[in-house]
């Protein structure tokens, strides 16, 4: 009898079973849980296309020698570019790029063939619309490849000597509008964090406010169940859901988009557990102050937004101003993105991971204490 107010796994388990039963009958939430990661991935998937094809390009050829003709033919044959325009002047090429008709301008300077044969190392210039950095990332390679084939093919006999020393010609890439590009693989590991933040915080916040809105909270409060038991029972099903969503994301990334997964999935699972728990506890804390589901929804959007903006998902973290980095560092999403990028792409070990794991653990402890404080055991 004296122990009636101690933590009971049995009661927490009862809350969890109840939550599962309710979730099973909540078709729209179930659909959201599965559809959201797939939909987001497919949407982002085309932006993180690791091997873009047929990007529109304009040629600006001022040289009419045989090398230039072969080079243009080689570019047209590559499936990286779709050479849709032949610009007559620099102004025209500039306009095509600015207005978005083409993504690239490939300029072959006057006297290119002559300079090449003379051994003057002429340059081919690519101007890229780098507002879509993923798309432009492969351009340099593609142009170099075409050039190399032309050189191999054309420089024969007496001209073969030109291949001996430095490359006889080179390609220069100008990234326009966005001089630094994001790497494409940043997206998938980051997306795990973003989807889990969005769905995790919202679902838990709603799970509690739903009780309040439907009047069942009064009943729950009148029963001998402790706040921590309610919290654990409510959170447990959503932890499993978080794993399910992460599994979907990783599987789609691997099999549909061929993202290389070099690290240990066990390490990732460990970090996932902490990260999911952080989001759930955060949602639980919000719900303790929300009066109805609309309010809970608005509050979760308020806290999700900085997680997307300041976590390094959208913008390189190192490039953000100090204040933004300080805010970003307090959020679990920031640390989880680093861990998941590290594990999936760089194969970091536990010691490397710890640097970002402990801030998440600290956040978890803090937010759980806050949740317990905010969760009212009365209706006051």
């Amino acid at each position, binding site marked *: 009898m004296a122990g009636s107010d101690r933590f009971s796994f049995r009661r927490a388990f009862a809350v969890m079973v*109840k939550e599962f039963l309710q979730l099973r009958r909540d078709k729209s939430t179930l659909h959201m849980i599965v559809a959201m990661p797939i939909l987001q991935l497919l949407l982002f998937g085309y932006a993180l296309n690791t091997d873009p094809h047929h990007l529109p390009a304009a040629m600006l050829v001022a040289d009419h020698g045989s090398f230039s003709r072969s080079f243009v033919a080689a570019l047209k044959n590559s499936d990286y570019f779709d050479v849709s325009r032949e610009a007559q002047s620099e102004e025209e090429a500039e306009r095509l790029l600015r207005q978005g008709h083409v993504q690239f301008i490939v300029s072959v300077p006057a006297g290119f063939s002559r300079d090449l044969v003379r051994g003057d190392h002429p340059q081919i210039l690519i101007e890229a619309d780098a507002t879509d950095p993923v798309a432009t990332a492969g351009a340099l390679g593609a142009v170099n490849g075409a050039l190399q084939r032309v050189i191999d093919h054309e420089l024969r006999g007496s001209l073969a000597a030109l291949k001996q020393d430095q490359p006889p010609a080179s390609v220069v890439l100008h990234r326009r509008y966005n001089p630094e590009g994001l790497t494409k693989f940043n997206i998938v590991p980051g997306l795990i964090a973003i989807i889990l933040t969005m769905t995790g915080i919202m679902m838990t916040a709603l799970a509690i406010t739903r009780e309040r809105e439907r009047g069942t909270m009064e009943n729950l409060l009148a029963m001998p169940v402790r706040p921590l038991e309610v919290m654990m029972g409510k959170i447990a099903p959503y932890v499993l859901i978080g794993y399910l969503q992460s599994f979907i994301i990783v599987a789609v990334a691997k099999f549909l988009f061929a993202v290389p997964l070099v690290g240990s999935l066990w390490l990732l699972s460990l970090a996932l557990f902490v990260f999911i728990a952080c989001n759930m506890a955060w949602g639980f804390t919000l719900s303790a102050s929300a009066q109805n589901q609309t309010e809970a929804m608005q509050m979760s959007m308020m806290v999700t937004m900085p997680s997307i903006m300041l976590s390094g998902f959208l913008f390189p973290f190192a490039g953000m101003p100090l204040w933004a980095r300080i805010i970003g560092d307090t959020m679990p999403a920031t640390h989880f993105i680093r861990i998941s990028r590290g594990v999936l792409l760089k194969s970091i070990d536990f010691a490397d991971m710890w640097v970002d794991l402990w801030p998440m653990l600290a956040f978890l402890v803090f937010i759980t204490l806050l949740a317990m404080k905010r969760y009212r055991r009365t209706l006051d």
Partner: protein
Amino acid sequence: MNGETRAIDVRRLTKKFGDKIAVDHVDIAVPRGKIYGFLGPNGSGKTTTMRMICGLLTPDDGEGTCLGFDIRTQAAEIKRRIGYMTQRFSYWEDLTIRENLKFVATIYGLDRIDARVDDALASLGLTDRAAQLAGELSGGWKQRMALAACILHEPELLLLDEPTAGVDPKARREFWDEIHRLAARGITILVSTHYMDEAERCHAIIYMAYGHVVTQGSVKDVLKGAGLDTWVVKGPGLIALMHELEKEPAVATVAPFGDSLHVSGTDPAALAATVEKYRTREGYSWQKSEPSFEDVFIRYMSATADTAGRNINGR
């Protein structure tokens, strides 16, 4: 248990919501094993008082015990021993009846859960509906289910907040038969209601209005305590007559009941004199009568409305 003879014993219980005093220095004592009716108009503080007794609200002032446990510090002990049925249906509508009962049984840490749930379903005639979602039940069946869930852990005290609101007369009758069976087993019951016939089925009643307890005691005492004399008048144009009578100083309340008016006053002689004035009128029949519960409460309600109205205006 604890040698305590009172299931509820609270004094000066007070609760404010912002500026509004919902419950103002309320004293309530309910002996064990009795059915107490909790009456009063909407917003009189009945629900708030019940919530303070079972630990759902913290009183701003006052003290007391519920089943011998302090309502301020031992809410956890109280929660395990009482059953509280909320005014609005508060079980999970997307769970079946059986799932709801099993959840409640587990939370209270009961043993033999399946057997207990089966018994509870059978005794309330819910066995056939056990697999139905609670949200699909009609009002009467919902109340039955809520009661079944409330008594699953064999509480010593039941707090029922308007359990029969919106329930048809037959279901109401059956509900009250069940309440009496529970009381016969020694369970104390505090039940709030608006129905006078239900009040008459209680051992005693507590009448609240505007946050105050206006009167409490047995039904007979309350009727007597009101000191009310009532006359029943029948005849044509009763509404016009009612307006006239309301202006008479000796008349405290006038209320229409079907084809008659109940005219009540606190001073028998003055009231009789007033009645004499109207008796001479053609077509009316006057008869002295016992005041009904209804008359008494209408009287209480208007009396407290006056004083409470003054308080509010004075602020």
